């Protein structure tokens, strides 16, 4: 029993990889091969699908747009969450517990509920179809999450660190930037990872708030699937490319992923 233990994760990982493999292998097939015959791996290996994506601006600008708004969102969320998480972990103040819970309830709001009001709000203030609009909209669920994760990490740092720094003559901002933030660098990494992840994978709001200039890659894909018939190879190649940024980010934070949630409190 104990010896067969490795079988469970192995079978699970194979199950996880099968649909991904199918997508990747399809991206290297020609349309004829996809529609004409059932093959387990590409018979006529082709990079044509990828060439289309990298040379057609409607395709590659989607990637650039997605990366821009995800970056703005991650930086913004973590920056404002840092002082707030510090306040929640170090001080008691009027309404602190209610505020914390209210922040978390925003994590529960269905994006479908907010799609239309967001569209009207952002149109009214004139930032519809900008990267900023999507980045701001995604802070609705990313800021609460970042505060939650950072607060957990900060509570693990003993208060003596703060006090020693003040005795040594540090001002609060200097202490916070030069000593405190580097101490919880792992927590900042984990929070940034989760902000990146949820902003990267979300589509409903990103699609509603953009038209042309800031359109995310994922939305370009849905458009293509319906407008130009059934170009499965191209769709598969675009899908494969959306997996890569995530995979790179996971590799960097692999040692912290599991800890991220464990240190947070409910």
């Amino acid at each position, binding site marked *: 029993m104990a010896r067969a233990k490795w079988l469970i994760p192995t079978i699970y990982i194979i199950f996880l990889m099968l649909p991904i493999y199918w997508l990747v292998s399809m991206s290297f097939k020609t349309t004829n091969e996809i529609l004409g015959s059932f093959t387990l791996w590409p018979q006529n290996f082709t990079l044509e699908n990828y060439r289309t994506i990298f040379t057609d601006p409607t395709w590659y600008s989607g990637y650039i747009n997605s990366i821009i708004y995800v970056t703005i969102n991650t930086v913004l969320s973590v920056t*404002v969450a840092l002082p707030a998480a510090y306040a929640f972990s170090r001080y*008691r103040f009027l309404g602190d517990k209610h505020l914390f819970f209210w922040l978390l309830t925003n994590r529960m709001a269905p994006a479908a509920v907010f799609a239309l009001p967001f569209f009207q*709000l952002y149109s009214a203030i004139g930032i519809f179809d900008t990267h900023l609009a999507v980045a701001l909209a995604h802070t*609705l669920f990313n800021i609460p999450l970042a505060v939650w994760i950072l607060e957990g990490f900060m509570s693990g740092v003993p208060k003596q660190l703060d006090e020693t720094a003040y005795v040594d003559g540090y001002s609060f901002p200097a202490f916070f930037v030069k000593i405190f933030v580097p101490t919880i660098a792992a927590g900042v990494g984990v929070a940034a990872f989760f902000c990146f992840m949820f902003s990267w*994978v979300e589509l409903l709001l990103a699609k509603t708030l953009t038209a042309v200039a800031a359109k995310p890659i994922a939305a370009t894909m849905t458009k293509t699937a319906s407008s130009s018939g059934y170009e499965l190879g191209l769709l598969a190649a675009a899908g494969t490319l959306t*997996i890569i940024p995530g995979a790179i980010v*996971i590799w960097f934070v692999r040692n912290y992923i*599991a800890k991220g949630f464990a240190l947070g409190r*409910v």
Partner: protein
Amino acid sequence: MNKTVNQKAWFFVAPVLILVAFNAIVPLMTVVNYSVQETFGDNVFFWAGLRWFEEILRSPRFHDALGRQLFFTFTILAIEVPLGVIIALAMPRKGPWVSVCLVLMAMPLLIPWNVVGAMWNIFGLPELGLLGKTLNTLGFDYNYTRQPGDAWFTLILMDVWHWTSLVVLLAYAGLVSIPDAYYQAARIDGASSWAIFRYIQLPKMKRVLTIAVLLRFMDSFNIYTEPSVLTGGGPGNSTTLLSIDLVKIALGQFDLGPAAAMSLIYFLVILLFSWIFYTVMTRGEEQ
């Protein structure tokens, strides 16, 4: 940690408060505003009172969508949580394989949701997809675009594929936080592996499992993109979950009043269930 009382801490929280309030309160008020009015276009609105709420609460269409939503959410919770715990228990605790497992398992979490839908759409095609072709070759009559049962099977399998890893990561984080001394003590007492699970591992995982159940509950109740790409709510209405129905009413038919009323009821249902889960799962700690 004993915290000092400091009202100036509000200044630290202010930026978060302003940003989230801007995003949460203005749109929420818009929704409340629409939910009690009627419009015939041209920005002319009439007071409708609670009529939309009554209409939605009585409509069979809403009941059906809510029923499907509850069935979906509780099915995936019943599969993903135990499965996630089993996988986390079987994972290695040390060594080079830990990173490999974690990285590979986290992959589905980082794929954009519509790509997940598109991937399973392709994977399940009866003639062109690996899953569809395999099932049909094995003699099953599988076609998720025509048969509701197959659509549900694909939908649930897709969600298990997509999100079980989150439960695994959380449960694993709880497990690695257990000191070795606990296991040594259990071995000296001659505890069975079931006893170790029941009295050492499960209590230690309780907090992270609470987070897992809450997150999976909220996210599965809000699910929109994946099923809308995979089945579009079909065949017929058989996989039309709450979000899909809501978007159909709000952006498809542009019935703002009923859509807004439905949004509020929807949000309240999520809050209510989350509160029940939270209370039930943390009750033991307060005693």
